[in-house]
């Protein structure tokens, strides 16, 4: 039973990353009509920023949680201003190709300087150790990742679904021209949205640094799984992305326990099953 709970926890952690990343993808797709292939590379950058902060500047994990998303978010906004904005009105696939190119550049540069092996990033002192829950031993850091990710996901949902700013955002997704006519600076909102989505990816990167080590290709395979998550859940609903992300993480964890050989394919197999049963994805909106 211990092993089952441990795998469930690993599943929840992976689910947190799936949720944070697919959430960002959905927000970006809503505003920019672009599938951000660079999402995995920017997730990796988040982890590297945390690594640099600690090893070069002596700045600890807690500051990194704030600084890394901001740094990567600003980097993303520069990308949006200098490149992505020129794709407005073109076929979706150009956005995919452009961001794929950006991902290759970012990952290639990091691979050049850091090779393919992992760099260690230690767990902050306050979160070291673990607690015995009676039925299992819970490493505190892992529990923290799950709870913190959940809070961030829900905060993002609240921001978009329940606030004034979010209302502008949703309106601009539906009809940018009309929203502009009301005097709202839509291009600036698009830039900020991209920054927000990318910042969420970077945050996931910081969270994963102490667990998965910091590697240049840490986001490359992850992003493909996240694509499958997005196909399963659809990009129409924020809450849908969050729930699908966590659920798939848990299912993956269970697979690791019951049938480990299939653990790295289970999400893809589920995607196939969902497409066969309900071709529009679980949350329904056709695209």
């Amino acid at each position, binding site marked *: 039973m211990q092993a089952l709970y441990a795998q469930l926890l690993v599943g929840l952690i992976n689910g947190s990353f799936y949720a944070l990343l697919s959430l960002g993808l959905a927000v970006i797709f809503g505003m920019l009509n672009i599938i951000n292939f660079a999402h995995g590379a920017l997730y990796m950058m988040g982890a590297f920023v945390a690594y640099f902060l600690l090893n070069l500047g002596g700045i600890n994990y807690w500051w990194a949680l704030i600084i890394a998303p901001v740094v990567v978010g600003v980097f993303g906004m520069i990308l949006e201003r200098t490149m992505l904005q020129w794709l407005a009105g073109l076929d979706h696939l150009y956005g995919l190709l452009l961001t794929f190119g950006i991902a290759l550049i970012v990952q290639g540069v990091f691979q050049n300087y850091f090779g393919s092996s992992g760099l260690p990033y230690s767990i902050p002192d306050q979160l070291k150790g673990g607690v015995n829950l009676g039925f299992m031993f819970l490493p505190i850091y892992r529990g923290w990742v799950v709870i913190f990710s959940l809070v961030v996901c829900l905060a993002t949902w609240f921001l978009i679904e329940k606030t004034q700013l979010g209302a502008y955002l949703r309106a601009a997704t539906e009809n940018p021209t009309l929203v502009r006519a009301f005097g709202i600076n839509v291009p600036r909102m698009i830039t900020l949205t991209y920054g927000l989505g990318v910042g969420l990816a970077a945050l996931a990167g910081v969270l994963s640094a102490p667990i998965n080590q910091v590697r240049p290709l840490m986001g490359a395979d992850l992003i*493909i799984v996240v694509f499958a998550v997005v196909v399963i859940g659809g990009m129409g609903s924020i809450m849908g992305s969050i729930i699908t992300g966590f659920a798939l993480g848990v299912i993956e964890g269970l697979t690791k326990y019951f049938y480990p*050989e299939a653990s790295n394919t289970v999400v893809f197999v589920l995607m196939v099953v969902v497409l066969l049963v309900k071709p529009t994805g679980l949350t329904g909106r056709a695209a």
Partner: protein
Amino acid sequence: MSALTDDTLPMTPRAMRDEMIVFAVMAALLAAVPFTGIYPFFVMQALCFALLACAFNLLIGYGGLLSFGHAMFLGTAGYVSAHALKVWGLPPELGIVVGVAAAALLGLVTGYVSIKRQGIYFSMITLALSQLLYFLYLQAPFTHGEDGIQGIPQGHLFGIFDLSKPLVLYYVVLVGFLAGFLLIYRTINSPFGEVLKSIRENEPRAISLGYKTDQYKMLAYVLSGTLAGFAGSLKVFVAQNASLTDVHWSMSGEIVLMTLVGGLGTIFGPVVGAFVIIAMQQYLAGFGQWVTVIQGVIFVSCVLLFRRGLVGELAHLLRRSL
């Protein structure tokens, strides 16, 4: 909907004549390669990738479907052909047939899953499916995991042509490439191809005209996958191995890159693109990971600066369809 090629020219007799002339020049140049001292292995490799890119282009350039998992056809056909040649001891022609059949079957299965979803979802699904296959091949015993299938016997094609002789192999690969190319050319200019282009330009309208667009897209997808598989089977004879590299997502990305550089939706673009990218990899092999960075830069600049690609820009300049 969107226009991938903003200047789709109607097929005129003059355009047809132009294309036949360019094709004849291309075939003559390629046939002359062994007499020029150019390393034939390099050209054979480029020809396999050129056919692969042409097959991919059939789907995106004429059907408007961006498959981000086309490496799965290359790799699957490669593995199956390699296994058939080495373990079952089949002659080359049957080895190719088995590999191509496997790719066709894979096209049917993955097409059934993915073709109902449009646009960007289709790209993500094909990418995820190819990643699924990658993990399956990583674990399957017959692929020998990280090592791949090595030391594949080349044998005698039809019992006559000794494929272990570079010159013979070169012309066999060339004939295979030209045959695949002509089949794609014929498809593009057939009534089927015209319907496909109409789906690319405006799918709802094609549906309203009574075309079952899903069936057309499915056929294009299977055909594209089958031809990509043919390229994979030919490549087995050139490289004499089949490995995980051929199924990896980065290979799918390279296929997209070749076609993009040459020109999406142009007839000769993918061939030019394949030669450019393979040559680049050859000459920059010593630069390690910078090759990836350069590929990324090419991606970005193609999308931002010249979306028509090399051949597309040239055709636009000459006001011809190439």
